[in-house]
């Protein structure tokens, strides 16, 4: 299991408290109604706080699902 996943799941739980934990791995902008533009920025900032690096906001449009964000963080976060 990707060691980043539990920490990223916690970030999702913070931003989307109504989203059941079991559904987080499959979560995407298309399936989570609360995932609007404000939530997207909030999610980025929460992830930045958790992993201690600055995400590229130009890629925000592509970071539209848990799995894509997991890939991105695994690739970009320091010591990930």
């Amino acid at each position, binding site marked *: 299991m990707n060691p980043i996943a539990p920490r990223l799941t916690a970030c999702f739980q*913070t*931003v989307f408290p109504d989203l059941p934990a079991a559904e987080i791995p499959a979560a995407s902008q298309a399936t989570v109604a609360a995932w609007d533009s404000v939530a997207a920025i909030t999610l980025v*900032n929460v992830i930045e706080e958790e992993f201690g690096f600055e995400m590229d*906001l130009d890629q925000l449009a592509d970071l539209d699902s848990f799995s894509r964000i997991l890939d991105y963080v695994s690739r970009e976060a320091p010591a990930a």
Partner: protein
Amino acid sequence: MKLTEALRILQQAPKTASLFRVALACGFTPLHMQTFLAAHLQQRLADRLVTISTGLYGDVPVTLTSLANVDGVALPLEWADLDPRLGYRGAGDWGPAALPDILAGAMAMLDRIAAALERIPPAIPIAVCRPTLPLPPIFHTAGWQAAEAELELERKLAEFASRIGRRCSLVNATRLGEDSPPAGRLDLRSDLLTGLPYTLPHAAAVGRALAHLLAPPAPKKGLITDLDDTLWHGLVGEVGAENVSWDLASHSQLHGLYQKLLASLAGEGVLVGVASKNDAPVVERTFEREDLLLPRDRIFPLEAHWSAKSGSVERILRTWNIAADSVVFVDDSAMELAEVAAAHPGIECLLFPKSDYAAGYALLRRLRDLFGKPRLSEEDAIRLESIRQGSGFQAVEGEASAETFLEQAEAAITFDFSPASDPRALELVNKTNQFNLNGIRYTEAEWKSRLELPGALRMVAGYRDKFGPLGKIAVLEGRHEGETLFIDAWVMSCRAFSRRIEHQCLQTLFERYAAKEIRFAFQPTPKNGPLRDFFTALAGQPPDAPFALERTQFEERLPRLYHRVIDASTSSNP
């Protein structure tokens, strides 16, 4: 506070609690500023559900003029709110040719904002944070030189602050600078991509500062201080009254500063007492020194003996008639602090640092924060005197029979039934614990709106006797419907106990409204035992929920009252 923590605080807020509605009037994208403000308010108002509404992007005056149903307003102002060219998101020119127009526009906008703030109903508290971000590099000077136009902007901003300071609470810019250093405030990436110009730490700091102003902590009421190596340098029992010091020449100025602060606090209505292990005559001789910066008459009571300090604190609290959690105890001995803290849970114990100047400065600031209050009232000025007189009252009462004493006290109570705009009434309701009907606190807006209910009544009682005035000491609030009165709030200052003022309040209500019964919205709280005892004496059993008191029942148990009753509408207050 981190963003994650703020979000969790908001998720854990009590969803069914009564609302505390705040309008966040910011010209930029509120985003995390909104989250941090809500979270900091929620921390302070644990029994409320904080909600934040936001206004129009880029138009602060319009947002301020379209407020509805709010309990408070928060305005984090930024330079770009005054003219978009003073920010980074606009396309307008920055050159010297544009500067006169930018200045004129900014000044006009400050006037519009001030006017909009002044139109907000006085009952709604307003918290304002002046611009916190550096001005963009639009001036012809290098960054290390202040430009003439920049100084002109700052002058106008100072005028604006002075004007709105009469109506609004303003964030202390210096203190904010300590929490959020200027270099770490602007997040250009966030500004350009999302519209929020603040870094997360700065948004948290501004949110915290605004929340402090909208929901300030209750100020402490009393300070008990040690003497040796605290109020002065040296052990007076060993070196003598003439050799303890608190001045620059003796390298003991820290003690002098502490004395000056205590004198200042006493002048603002803070009770100052002394708990010292010393021989009383030696202490009294020291207080005869004319160079003391805290005069002896500002201290009451003074406990100087060799018994445990927890006992001294116990007696001082009883004389003041306030709870330990309203009091700060300062001593240079960690052991004495621990002994007092163990005996009086809730008391705030602070160590006086004898030779650590940085810690001494921190202590002075901490004391100012603990005792700071937004405004001073008439009652603040007479509090010490009324406590002292109350002590005299109790001493004389102990000698004479209570009945004879009350008869000879020459007491007068003034009842004011039209105190709509008296801030003292709400202050009393929100800070009184012991004689409090149910412990419910109100915002200014809620308090004002209650007067608009059908049959609303509000009564403020002021008291004086031959020992002096106590000022306004009791508030009753509710409504009347036919021959029934409904009392939703009733508080009385602990300074006013033992004078049958509470009996006179009810007697006056029964008579004025020709009422046959009063229904009290009573709820027991951890601290309102004195009011519960009063009701027990009247009703024959302790209440544990709202209850009704019939006039016949009240009159059967009413002791004799000796007060002269004055109607404020026909006379001046006692």
